[in-house]
């Protein structure tokens, strides 16, 4: 069942369009919004965006089909992405992929029967210093191992709280899509811990008494 695009949704889409000097600029955020409501980009969602922006459905579909994050199949509750670009793959990402794919019994861009998980091989996530990396609803899970992957899946299945290593507590891909559409979910304070890798240079500098030339503002 695909949720309908309601009158309220149309108002929200219109609000997004108003943020930009030219309304069409809001199309990507609008498609994120549609995906948060419908769990996918459906023909009805495409028509809704077209309607709000005064475009043809074909023009909107051309955009929606270009971007990897927009799916024309229903996503599960959680989206799991495994980085299998060279560096992550080599450091263990391929093994994590094998582990996840076997555990969940699904392949790339497929969803488990219970509709809990959609699995995807993803490209570089700009987290190479924490490789191998995977994402749940696009929140980082750094320095992963097969054991951590098994634990993560068990927790998500049981509904226990799961905290991203450098991000928010996991809820659902629908909630993430709402954030990407531009709606503040008030979770920016979550995930206080800054990763060791982010502090590596600063700690070496402090230990060795190194500093930048004296200046202000830092």
């Amino acid at each position, binding site marked *: 069942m695909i949720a309908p695009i309601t009158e309220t949704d149309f108002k929200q889409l219109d609000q997004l369009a108003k943020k930009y000097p030219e309304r069409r600029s809001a199309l990507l955020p609008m498609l994120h919004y549609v995906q948060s409501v419908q769990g996918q980009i459906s023909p009805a969602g495409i028509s809704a965006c077209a309607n709000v922006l005064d475009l043809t459905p074909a023009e909107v579909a051309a955009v929606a089909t270009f971007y990897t994050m927009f799916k024309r199949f229903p996503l599960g509750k959680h989206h799991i992405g495994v980085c299998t670009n060279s560096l992550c793959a080599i450091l263990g990402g391929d093994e994590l992929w094998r582990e996840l794919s076997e555990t969940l019994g699904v392949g790339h861009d497929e969803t488990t029967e219970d509709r809990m998980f959609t699995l995807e091989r993803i490209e570089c996530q700009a987290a190479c210093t924490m490789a191998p990396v995977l994402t749940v609803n696009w929140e980082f899970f750094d320095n992963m191992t097969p054991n951590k992957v098994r634990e993560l899946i068990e927790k998500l299945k049981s509904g226990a709280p799961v905290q991203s290593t450098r991000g928010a507590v996991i809820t659902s891909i629908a909630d*993430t899509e709402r*954030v990407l559409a531009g709606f503040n979910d008030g979770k920016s304070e979550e995930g206080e811990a800054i990763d060791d890798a982010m502090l590596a240079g600063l700690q070496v500098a402090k230990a060795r008494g190194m500093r930048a030339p004296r200046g202000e503002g830092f």
Partner: protein
Amino acid sequence: MALTPILTANWDKPKSWTFDTYTATGGYQGLKKALKMAPDEVINIVKDSGLRGRGGAGFPTGLKWSFVPQNDGKPHYLVVNADESEPGACKDIPLMLANPHALVEGVIIASYAIRAKEAFIYIRGEVPHVIRRVSDAVEQAKANGLIGKNILGTDFSINIVVHAGAGAYICGEETALLDSLEGRRGQPRLKPPFPAVAGLYASPTVINNAETIAAVPVIVLNGADWHKSMGTEKSPGFKLFALSGHVERPGIYEAALGTPFSELLEYAGGVRKGHKLKFWIPGGSSVPMLTPEHVDIPMTYEDLQAAGTMLGTGTPMIFDETVSVVRAVSRWIEFYKHESCGKCTPCREGTGWMVGLLEKFEHGEGKHADLDLLHDISAQIAGRSFCALGDAAATPFPAAMKYFKDEFEQAETIAPHTVFPFEKSHKFETASVS
């Protein structure tokens, strides 16, 4: 040379990303100083500082700003490229997580300098937490009267929109980013006209990388000479270097440009224990790889160019002797195939062709003649596409052949994974999987 924590200096403070932490350490003082100067004076400081783009191309930032025509009656726009997606690049995302206000302050100053009233921060879609942090930083700056109408009692007004992409590497290319920001497929435009003349909505637009813009406030505050006291003549200043892969302590190392790679590697604890360096890539998969003989190269735009490669994003990936070059290159080409936007035939067709050929080498079934063919295809893609993605796709194979031809030849008969068992490269312990 030494480490120079500036943008990273306060990352170990509690809630380093908040307005209070940022202002407690002198944040937004650069903006206050800038607003007391004429916009052209701000451009001149950045020009004199020698700041160059940190996204890969290394174009002088102040010069780029000065290309924007003035008194042309058109709106001007500042667009921040925060679409960090280059394989190996992992500096803008941590920077925006830990210190988003440096970016926001830089955006306000840059907008003032180029006379833009509207700025956009285009962040890749796959990083919701970064989008939260940057959006909050914008809101906090707004609440403190630093964004909005007539800020700090001046006649300067600025609005900032944080915009999420949707998973397309090509949108890191500046003109594809503009098309994407206009709500279209992210495909590159032919240049000229350059964005400084006809960019977003065909209006004068400056596009800068996130790290570049985040460096602007401290440069304005401390002056061009302070900036030039770090780095080299052609590569002044400081840079976020991110070392990843087979090192003991992967991470962000902020240092003066010109710091030799070997010194950065030493800060990172060296190659992981019991192993030795095989190859490294100074700044993303789009720049040619180097070998142990190159480790003493100073990390500057000019020195790396002289060595036949580029500084790129300044984020070295380090691989030890357990890694198959064939496997690494093949996977990178798969990436370029996946991310090619399809606009230009050489890139669209060439990447697919290369993937098919390289797959055979991954299975130990490469044909010797295909090595020549792969060279030919690379040469046919390079320089024959609208944007740098094509050039990038044509880079890894010839670069790898320069140093590791024997490994490709070996893969004509022996599958790389039998010579380089995958589990030996893992960061975690794995039972042998065959």
